[in-house]
């Protein structure tokens, strides 16, 4: 990162100016930008950065060059205007014996200096408009990720791949308190970065859980507020692999400065490998029952682990190192009724959060971590609660009081590595299943078996569940023919399910759905099976 910071001055790239139509204009803007970058980068040494970060997406490049152009235009006007002022201050001084003229009006010049700025603005508006339209065009994404802002961490859900995780600050507290040397990526490092493939149009669906946040990665040219209760979208297509860092950009409370964003852009091959690993880790597509940690741990061991969890999972942010909270804002845990009261309430609070407050759900933590942190709070400071919990109690609480049938039992689950599948019956995470048909064809694709099996497994695992089948199409070509084809494909899927022994009344047919995108978009040729 440090190296790329230093290099950020070498930003001028001819490709930046591709988007401005004619060669003439290209040359003009190119010249202006060149001037600007010379002017602006002269005194740039490491640690004295004075310019926008080196762009890593087409949109960020447009932002970059727009900024250079407008800054140069402004600087030139500034020099001209104040050149006139300083000349006047020099030449028209009383001390030099200058006698004041008495003119105070000139309609011509007033019209001229109204019209010229207007024309300059018109010229500027053109590339800016183009950039706005590009920036806001999130259609036909190749991948969609849901981003959720929490106080104070980010959640990333790979919604089509069936898994998600939370990303929190990785800088140790000791560095913030100046007790340790600060690392190079101080406050710009996280435990789990967002991972995306290079060159793919990634669409982000951005929302928040509690208050406003803003997801901002300068190099990718994305800054979008995360608004609780609403979903906004943004997109980027990274040009080069690497690590790209940013921050939450909207004040979100006291730890606002401590919720960085790191995006790891991988080559497609590396990404595929990573994706497979993640799916494996989170048990995506497996019809396995959740793994439950049934081991009974000594109370001290859990409490010791709990201290680590308390400090790393974010508890300490609001409730403080001494459990005192912040009076009037965040409740104290030391001597709290919740922590010293019935333990089931505390377990429920950690699993579900408290709506309308900063207390988010912590169910993404493992059973053992949740048990540990509860045991830690109940034995720390002045708290001396007799009650304590084991990981299995948390698992039971997750499933409404008893373990689900057929839950596999393991001695230990690696801390912080909780299968997210635990939070929902694993069998449904295989859905939605997608079947991609050949262009113009309604025959079942050759790889249909996997998707059908997923649907069958889902129906088998839940005796009363139903599935819904939706055919998709896009807006190219004859609409009626497209819709007809989508229906026929959906019917083919229904027949296949019926042939496999599924009762008719467990299958719902949905009307065909239209999506935007080019003719070669395979998403427009899919049939999707969802839980109904």
């Amino acid at each position, binding site marked *: 990162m440090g190296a790329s910071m230093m290099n950020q001055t070498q930003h001028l790239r001819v490709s930046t100016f591709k988007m401005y139509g004619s060669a003439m204009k290209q040359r003009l803007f190119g010249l202006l930008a060149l001037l600007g970058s010379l002017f602006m980068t002269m005194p740039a040494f490491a640690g*004295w950065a*004075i310019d926008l*970060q080196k762009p890593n997406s087409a*949109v*960020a490049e447009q932002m970059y060059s*727009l*900024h250079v152009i407008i*800054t140069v235009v*402004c*600087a030139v*006007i*500034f020099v001209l*205007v104040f050149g*006139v002022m300083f000349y006047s*201050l020099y030449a*028209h001084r009383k001390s030099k014996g*200058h006698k*004041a003229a008495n*003119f105070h*009006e*000139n309609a011509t010049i*007033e019209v001229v*200096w109204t019209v010229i700025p207007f024309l300059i*603005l018109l010229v*500027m508006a053109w590339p*800016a*408009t183009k*950039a*706005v339209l590009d920036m*806001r*065009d999130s259609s036909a994404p190749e991948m969609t990720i849901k981003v959720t802002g929490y106080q104070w961490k980010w959640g990333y859900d790979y919604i089509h791949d069936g898994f998600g995780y939370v990303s929190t600050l990785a800088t140790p507290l000791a560095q*913030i*308190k*100046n007790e340790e040397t600060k690392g*190079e990526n*101080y*406050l710009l490092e996280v435990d789990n970065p967002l991972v995306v493939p290079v060159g793919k149009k990634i669409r982000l669906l951005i929302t928040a859980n509690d*208050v*406003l946040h*803003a997801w*901002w990665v300068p190099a990718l040219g994305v*800054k*979008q*507020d995360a*608004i*609780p*209760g*609403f979903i*906004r979208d943004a997109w980027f297509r990274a040009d080069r692999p690497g690590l790209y860092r940013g*921050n939450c*950009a*909207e*004040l*979100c409370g*006291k730890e606002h*400065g401590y919720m960085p964003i790191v995006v790891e852009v991988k080559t497609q091959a590396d990404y595929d490998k990573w994706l497979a690993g993640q799916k494996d880790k989170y048990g995506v597509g497996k019809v396995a029952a959740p793994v439950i940690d049934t081991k009974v741990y000594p109370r001290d061991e859990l409490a010791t682990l709990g201290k680590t969890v308390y400090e790393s999972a974010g508890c300490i942010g609001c409730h403080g190192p001494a459990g005192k909270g*912040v*009076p*009037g*804002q965040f409740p104290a845990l030391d001597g709290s009724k919740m922590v010293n009261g019935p333990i089931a309430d505390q377990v429920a609070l950690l699993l579900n959060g408290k709506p309308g407050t900063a207390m988010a759900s912590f169910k993404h933590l493992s059973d053992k971590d949740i048990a540990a942190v509860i045991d830690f709070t109940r034995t720390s400071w002045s708290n001396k609660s007799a009650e304590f919990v084991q990981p299995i109690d948390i698992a039971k609480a997750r499933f409404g009081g008893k373990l689900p049938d057929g839950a596999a039992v393991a001695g230990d689950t690696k801390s912080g590595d909780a299968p997210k599948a635990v939070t929902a019956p694993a069998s449904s995470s295989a859905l939605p299943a997608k079947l991609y048909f050949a262009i113009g064809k309604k025959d079942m694709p050759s790889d249909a078996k996997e998707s059908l099996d997923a649907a069958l497994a889902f129906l088998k695992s839940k005796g009363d569940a139903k599935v819904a089948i939706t055919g998709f199409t896009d807006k190219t070509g004859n609409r009626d023919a497209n819709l007809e084809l989508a229906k026929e494909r959906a019917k083919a899927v229904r027949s296949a399910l019926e042939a496999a022994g599924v009762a008719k009344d467990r299958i719902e047919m949905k009307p065909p759905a239209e999506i935007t995108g080019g003719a070669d978009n395979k998403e427009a040729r899919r049939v999707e099976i969802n839980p109904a």
Partner: protein
Amino acid sequence: MASVPHDHSHDHAHDHDHHPLKWTRFFTTTNHKDIGTMYMWFSFAMFLSGGVMALGIRAELFQPGLQVVRPELFNQLTTLHGIVMIFGAIMPAFVGFANWMLPLQLGAPDMAFARMNNWSFWLLPPAAILLIGSFFVPGGAAAGGWTLYPPLSVQAGMGMDMMIFAVHIMGASSIMGSINIITTILNLRAPGMTMMKLPMFAWTWLITAFLLIATMPVLAGAVTMLLTDRHFGTTFFNAAGGGDPVMFQHIFWFFGHPEVYIIALPAFGVVSQIIPTFSRKPLFGYASMVYATASIAILSFIVWAHHMYTTGLPAAGQLYFMYATMLIAVPTAAKIFNWLATMWRGSITLETPMLFCLGFLFLFTMGGFTGLVLSLTPVDIQLHDTYYVVAHFHYVMVAGALFSAFAAVYYWGPKWTGWMYEEKLGKIHFWWSLIAFNITFFPQHFLGLAGMPRRIPDYNMQFENWNAVSSVGAFLFGFAQIFFIVIVIRMIKGKSGIRAAAKPWDGAEGLEWTVPSPAPYHTFETPPVVK
């Protein structure tokens, strides 16, 4: 031009007879000069409080890591610094100038509603107590930023309620002040002073007062909804109950953007008085100045969402607000050109008020240009909520408002006190402020460009150097203002030894220079006649 009271000494004695000298004088006064003076002292006290908060912020940001304040206090400081400076320091300062100078400029004996004038001032100290006192209640002061965005502001402690009530009170004070100013300007002008003969300061205040009347109730509505969301179970800004957090931002900025011009326009007025004086040449393009001021005011109502580009406005919305915002550059540029043309071929001297006006021109233009940079939506997406924006609005606010307020104090101070200030000290104050201001805020452009968000107490080491520079500048700037108060007190005490003439500036025009310095307690008891 005007009928000056013939017998000065008699007038003065007569005046003393009626001077209420009791300690209750300042509570009960209805005299526009007393009230103007109180506004100014109040504003200066708030300016120092807000300044101390700013120095707390800069001390914490001097180095990466947490040293001086905890993050929660840091957020309280940034929030209160904004509110205190805008509502406590800048706006009352210009209302103070208006109180003192408008009746003198118009040839009126006092403001139109003298008792309401007293009330609009005395609402301010309770509001200030609520604001400053909120630091000492459980949970501390409001910490959601001066923009008070929900849901964060709904989450906060009772400091937020105190802030909301303070905003209500200050809003009521502003509305009353505006009604007073509008009525005074429209009804109490001396015979012969037509609207197109109004001094520019009166014109800009007239337009500003309309802006205040139009926007303050909007802000009051927004914070009232916040209050009921907090305590009475409404969900105006909560999606879970059918509300929308972004709606608050629309309402807030419908007030907030005109507010920028509420602060800037009276400053334009001051500058439009001072530059002609020291250029010894009439203001260039008086009529176009009036029209430019009015068009800026009107445009200010239709650009509010340029503060909200990152909320996810649709492309059409972003484009409209971008075009409208860019358009504001046109009348603003016309004003700058008018001032330059006023100086052109004048006979210029550089006394302290003129220096501050030139500083204003220089810095305000710089802030105007960064505003133009920010008006481009795609650029703003990168720069929104970064230190670039912090630099931008300090160039506009500090240069636009504060520098012209200093200019006004040096320019009209002799009229208020009867003594000249010490020219050498004034010039030192100017150069000290100008240099320290630029050391503080120019590097913040770089910080924002390089990617440092605003409102964070701690940052990566890549931002370390410029932050250190900026903090040093901030303390220098702070000390310069201690120096300023010394200059003002020395002026009041007549340390320069130079008594101010009725018209201490040879190039000055206007009725205010026809009364003696210091201006007697009662002036223009019979209206002067303007040709």
